[in-house]
Each structure stands twice: as structure tokens, then as C-alpha cells.
């Protein structure tokens, strides 16, 4: 029997055909339309897009917010993943509930809640005044800091879970072996823990970064029209401005960004995998 005549393969046909026809084909068409002008292949839309300093600002907004959200999630998520793997039963259950429950509640619900939390009389402002970080209540809503805080909250589980899935597999005896051989705690962390958890970190960072680059509901509720990202600009140009040319251009740039994050993280993960 020839490999490609395997009858079991037929079971994959419906799903693959569905996706090819209704998902891959439209995406390819979107891509093709954006580079095929009236007179053949053209990159003119992209040249026009990048000739406008406002659009550079939009790209910068997108990347800087995604960067800060990823950094915030990594700073909280890395130790949290360790705590989740090493905690006693009660704390572990509390953490699992706190991670899984928000995942099952919609983004609109959470973004709306952050609108309330970030108000001038909101919880964050009250805490910061009580801690005497701020002299008087301030509004975080419609600021970049507020956007980063809200987005980090929504995407944090996608940082914790991949790191946790790696940490729980690490044999604790490795650290003991390191200690027996005279390694200091910091040295053990840097030379044993960090390299072993790196694959989880890579996939967590890739998840959070690509989700932050493409988020749409969160910025539209937490920061508004004043601050445009590639994603909000794409949405606006299709839904409100009826400027399909601009929308297709930004959509393809967004797609390219997302695909390069996925490809880069896959490559990194394979490299890390082959090293160990």
C-alpha cells in the first residue's frame, strides 16, 4: 500500500477541506488582493502606509503595548508558575480556580470590569492612594498604563500555564544534586532552572505577545479612539471608515506580525529542544 493511499487519511478530508475552503482560501485572497494592483504586482499600498508618520505611531503603539504586557505577565507569571507547581493542595486549587475561571469568562466582561477598576474612584486608584504612592486619586482608564494593566490581567493565564506545564516536569532532585555538588542557590537557579523552563517561557511569551498585538476589544474599551493600534485601526477602517484598502493593508501587516511570532517561537522551541 502506498503511503498516500492510506484509507484512514480520508477521515481527515472533511475538516481539512472545510478549513482550506473557508479559511485558508479567504486569507490567501486577502493577501493576494493587497499586493495585486490594477497594473500587476505592487507594494504601493504598503509604501503609502509607511510614508505616513501617523501609521508609524500606530505600529509603535501596537508593539510597545504588546511588549509591556508581555513583560508584566512574565514578571508575575514566572514565579506564579513555580508556586502553582510547588504549592500545597489548598493553594494549588485556589490558583487553578483563579486561572481557569477567568479563562471561561468572556473578554467583553473582563474589559468592562477593568473600566470600573481603573476609574478615578476605582480600586487601583484607592490602593495606590492608601499606599501613599499617589497623593490624590487619578484616572487610569484611557491611559496606556491602564491598558497594559487590563491586558496583562486578561492574558496572564496564557503565561502561567505553559511555564507551569514545564516546571511540574522538572525533577526536584536535579536541584539537590546541584546543591550536593556545591552550587549556590543563585547559580542553581540560573544554570538549572532557567534553561529547563525556557521552552515554557518561549511559548508563554509567544502566546501573550501575539494576543496583545491582535487584541481589539480590550483597547477599544480601555483606551479609546485616541490611541490606535494596528488591530483597532484595521477594525475601524472596515467597520466605520469603510476604507477597505487601508484595512486590508493593516490586516496583512498584523497577519505578518502574528505569523512571524509563531514561526520564531516554534524555531526557538525546536532549538531549545534539540539542545537538551
Amino acid at each position, binding site marked *: 500500500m502506498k503511503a*498516500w493511499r492510506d484509507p*484512514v*487519511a480520508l*477521515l*481527515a478530508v472533511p475538516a*481539512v477541506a472545510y*478549513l482550506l475552503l*473557508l*479559511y485558508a*482560501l*479567504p486569507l490567501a*485572497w*486577502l493577501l493576494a*488582493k493587497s499586493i495585486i494592483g490594477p497594473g500587476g504586482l505592487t507594494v504601493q499600498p504598503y509604501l503609502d502606509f509607511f510614508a505616513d508618520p501617523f501609521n508609524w505611531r500606530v505600529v509603535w503603539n501596537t508593539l510597545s503595548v504588546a511588549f509591556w504586557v508581555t513583560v508584566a505577565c512574565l514578571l508575575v507569571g*514566572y*514565579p*506564579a508558575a*513555580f508556586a502553582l507547581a510547588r*504549592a500545597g493542595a489548598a493553594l494549588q*486549587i*485556589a*490558583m*487553578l*480556580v*483563579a486561572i*481557569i*475561571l*477567568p479563562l*471561561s*469568562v*468572556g*473578554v*467583553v*466582561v*473582563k474589559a*468592562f*470590569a*477593568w473600566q470600573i*477598576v481603573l476609574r478615578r*474612584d476605582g*480600586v487601583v486608584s484607592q490602593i495606590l492612594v492608601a499606599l501613599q504612592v499617589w497623593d490624590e486619586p487619578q484616572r487610569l482608564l484611557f491611559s496606556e498604563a491602564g491598558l497594559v494593566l487590563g491586558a496583562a*490581567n486578561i492574558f*496572564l493565564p496564557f503565561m502561567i500555564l505553559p511555564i*507551569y*506545564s514545564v516546571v511540574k516536569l522538572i525533577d526536584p532532585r536535579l536541584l539537590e544534586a546541584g546543591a550536593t555538588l556545591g552550587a*549556590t*542557590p543563585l547559580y542553581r537557579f540560573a544554570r538549572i532552572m532557567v534553561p529547563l523552563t525556557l521552552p515554557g517561557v518561549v511559548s508563554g511569551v509567544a502566546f501573550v505577545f*501575539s494576543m496583545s498585538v*491582535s487584541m*481589539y*476589544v480590550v483597547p477599544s474599551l480601555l483606551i479609546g479612539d485616541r490611541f490606535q493600534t494596528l488591530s483597532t485601526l*484595521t*477594525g475601524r477602517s*472596515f467597520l466605520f471608515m469603510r476604507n477597505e484598502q487601508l*484595512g*486590508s493593508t493593516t*490586516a496583512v501587516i*498584523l*497577519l505578518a506580525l*502574528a505569523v512571524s511570532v509563531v514561526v520564531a517561537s516554534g524555531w526557538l522551541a525546536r532549538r531549545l529542544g534539540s539542545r537538551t
Partner: protein
Amino acid sequence: MTPIERLARALMWIAATFTVVFLMTPLFVTVAVSFGSSSVFTLPPPDWSLRWYDRLTVTRGLWPSLLTSLQVAAFSTAVALALGTLCAIALVRGRFPGRDGIATFLISPLMLPGLVVGIAMLQGFKAAGLREAYASLLIAHVIITLPYVVRTVLAALSLFDFSLIDAARTLGCSYPAAILRVLVPALGPAFLTSGMFAFLASMDNYPISIFFTDAWTKTLPIQMLQYVEENPDPTIAAISSGLVLLAIVALIVGDRLVGLRKMADF
């Protein structure tokens, strides 16, 4: 314990506590506001009341949108379970080239920006002459739900021992009976978790659905965002609390059936 180890332990504890409080904050705030009497989101609320829940019955467009969302989610999850399971069987049992590529392709809608996928589908459907919002929603949501099914069922199938089916056959089961009584129960937990997450993902989707709505057909997230933008009052918090309750039920069911730890598998 050396000071550094103590420091590391303390850091872990702080991170754990902070994570729990931080992640639960939006849910607590939503529920608290929904039971408050104040219409300006004061926290803690000056007095408790159920008035926002009363308002739910007269909120225009809420129930039709909820119904649309439930129908679309149920239909797309069912189709995704059928297509996804068949495909997962082919990928695990088949010996044809490109299986890894196909798996990545089927999971890829999860990783691409929803807005871009939505725009591409909108233009594709338009070109194919499909203008009906409801049908478009059904078709589009299968692409949202399919990756969840493929990912989880694929993982479960790769742990399944297919010689069990041969054993059942040897013991006198017919082939369909062997599938029904051996394979399906073994995959039960995978069907349930993936079906649940697929359903919730469809219920929650905004960036793809927004392109397939018209004046009559709206899904719940789209209707909710419209309320938030038009007149934000705690009625939205009351709807949200309903969704939180749905999530809690899903979590309890999931815990009973497969356990919390398994649900956190990534």
C-alpha cells in the same frame, strides 16, 4: 534554609497570592457592582439591590442575542466535534506524510488575529454570494471551535491504545460496537473539556462575529459591547454575572469529570 532560599520562597508566595487576587478582581468587581444600588459603579456599593437584574427582562435585544449566541455555539461545537474527531483519528492512526503540518494548520486559527481572519472570511463569503448573517456566523464559528477540539482530542487519542479495539473485536464485539463501547468512553473526558472550551470560545468571540452581524442578528458579546458604549450602567454587570455563573458551573462540571489539574494542561 539559607536566606536566599527563604527569599525565593517568599517571592513565590507573594506571586501566588497576588496572582489569585489579581485574576479574580474583575470577576469580584462585576458581581459586586451588579448587586449594588448605585448606578455609577461605586465600590463598595452604598446599598445592595436587585434592580439591575430586574432590568434584564426589559433590556432590548438582550434575549435574542443570547439565543443567537447559544445556537451558534451549540451548532459550531457539534460540527467541530464531529469534524475534529474524525480528523484526529486520521492524524493518529494514518501513515501519510504531512500529518504534523495538517495538525498545525487545523490549530492555526487560534494563533492568528481574529480580526484578520474575520475580514478575510467576510470578503470570501461576499465573493461567494453569501450575505446572510446567521448562516455566515454558523460557518465562521466552526473555524473558531475546531482548533480546541483537534488539540484536545489529538492529545487524548495519542494516549489511547488502539489494540483495545482489536481486543473487543476478538471478544465478539462488532466493529461499530467496539468503537461505541471502547473508543467513545475513553475519549469522553476529551470531548467534554474540548467541547466546553470550544463552546465558551464561540460564546465569547467578538473579532470574527463583528463582521457577520446585521440589525437583526447579533451575538451576545456584540450586543454587550454596544450597551457598554451607548449607556454603561450596572445592567451589563448583571449580564456579566450571569456569564460568570455559567463559567463557575462549567468549572465545577469540568472538575468533576476530568479534574482541575487536567483542565490546566496546556
